[in-house]
C-alpha cells in the first residue's frame, strides 16, 4: 500500500536551523562550508596555474585576471577558512576517535554530556583559529 505520509525531512535547513541549538552545531556547519570553499578554491587554483603550460602570455593573462581587490579579499577568506578548517579538523580528529569526551557515565539529571566535556576544546579552537586569521589579516594588509 502506498504511504500517504507527508515528507518532513529538514534538508539543508537542518544544518543552519541552529537558532536555539548548540555551539557545536555551528562549528559543524562552518566546517562543511569552509570545506566546500577550500575545495572550490583548490579547483580554481589548479585551473589558473594550469595556464602556465600554454606559455608566459597565457600565464600573465590569467594572473592579471585574478589580481583585483575582490580576489585579494577572496584569498584572505580562503586563508581564514583554512585556519578554521585545519584547527577544527584537529579537534574533530581527536573527538571522532573517542578522545576528550570521557567514558560512559551514569545519567543523573541535569545530564552531563560529551558535548559539554569537550566544550573547552571547542572554545580553544575558535580562539586559535581567530588568532591565526587575525595574524593572516595583518600580514595581508602589510604585504599590500
Amino acid at each position, binding site marked *: 500500500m502506498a*504511504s*500517504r*505520509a*507527508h*515528507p*518532513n*525531512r*529538514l*534538508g*539543508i*535547513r*537542518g*544544518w543552519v*536551523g541552529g*537558532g*536555539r*541549538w*548548540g555551539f*557545536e*552545531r555551528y*562549528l*559543524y*556547519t562552518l*566546517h562543511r562550508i569552509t570545506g566546500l570553499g577550500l575545495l572550490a578554491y583548490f579547483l580554481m587554483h589548479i585551473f589558473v596555474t594550469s595556464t602556465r603550460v600554454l606559455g608566459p602570455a597565457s600565464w600573465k593573462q590569467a594572473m592579471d585576471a585574478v589580481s583585483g581587490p575582490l580576489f585579494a579579499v577572496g584569498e584572505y577568506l580562503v586563508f581564514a577558512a583554512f585556519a578554521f578548517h585545519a584547527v577544527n579538523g584537529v579537534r*574533530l580528529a581527536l*573527538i*571522532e*576517535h*573517542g*578522545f576528550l*569526551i*570521557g*567514558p*560512559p*557515565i*551514569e*545519567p*543523573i*539529571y541535569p*545530564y*552531563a*554530556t*560529551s*558535548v559539554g566535556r569537550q566544550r573547552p576544546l571547542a572554545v580553544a579552537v575558535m580562539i586559535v583559529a581567530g588568532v591565526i586569521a587575525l595574524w593572516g589579516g595583518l600580514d595581508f594588509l602589510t604585504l599590500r
Partner: protein
Amino acid sequence: MADARPRTVTFRVRRFEPGRDERPRWEDHRVEVTPGMTVLDGLWKVKEQSAPSLAWRSSCRMGICGSCGMLIDGRPRLACNTQVAELGSEVVAVGPLPNFDIVKDLVPDLRPMFETHRDLRPYLLRDDTEEQDDPTREYWQSPHELEEYLQFSYCIKCGCCMAACPTVATDPHYAGPMPLAQAQRYDSDSRDAGFGERREVLSGGDGPWRCHFAGECSQVCPKGVDPAKAIQLMKRDLVFDLLRLRRRKPPAAVAEAPHGLPREGIPPAPPRTVPEG
C-alpha cells in the same frame, strides 16, 4: 497585588490530515495554563475543547515510554516531560518530529529508524543458543563492565536525537544516532560477541563515519543517553579493531553457582510457571 486571572497561552499546533491536506498547516488554540501543566496536558485540553481530531502518540506521561517526542518551540522534546511554564513563551509551537514523514498531525512515521535499529541486531549475539533459549544462570559481569554500556541502555527510542541531527536532515541513508548508539550499547557489553557481525553493517558509508559531532543528539536526549559519545566510542573501537589494538575477549561465561556462602534462611525457588519443553 498579583493578577488573579488565569494565564492563557496559544498552542500553535502543526496539523496534517492525509488525503485532505496538501501540506501541513498551523492552527492556533488558546489554552488556560495550570501550575505544573505539561505540553502533553495542553494538547489534551486542545483536543477536548477545540480540535477533537488532533492526533499524537503518548502513553506513560512520565518520560519512560518515548511515545510523545515532538518538536516543541523548535527543539525536539518529550511533550510529557516539558512544562509549559519552563518554555516561558506566550505561543507554544508544537509540530511533529522533523526528519520523519508525517503520518497525521503530530504523529511521525518512525519505521525507518526502527528498521535500521533492527538491522544492527540490538540484542546479545552469542554462540550458546541453548543457554540463551533456556538459561541456567546469569552471565557473569562486573560492575565496571556494566558501566561500559549502562548509560546507552537508558534509551527510550523516542526519536528526538534523529530529529535534531543535521546529518540525518540531509542524508536519508545515514543510520542515525539512536540505532548507532544502541549498536554500541551491545558492542560494549561484555556478554556480547556480535562486534564482528555488526561491524559488517557499520563499516559502510551510512554508519558512524557520517557523524561529525554536531552534538545535537546528546543535547536534546531526554534521558541523558549521549548518543554522540556512543558513536565516537564506536569509531574508536572500529579503528582500534582495524589496527588490531582492540582487546578481543570471549563473551562472558555463565556465572558459577555460588559456593562458600551460607544458604540458611533462603527459600527455594518457586515452581516454574511456564511448562518445560
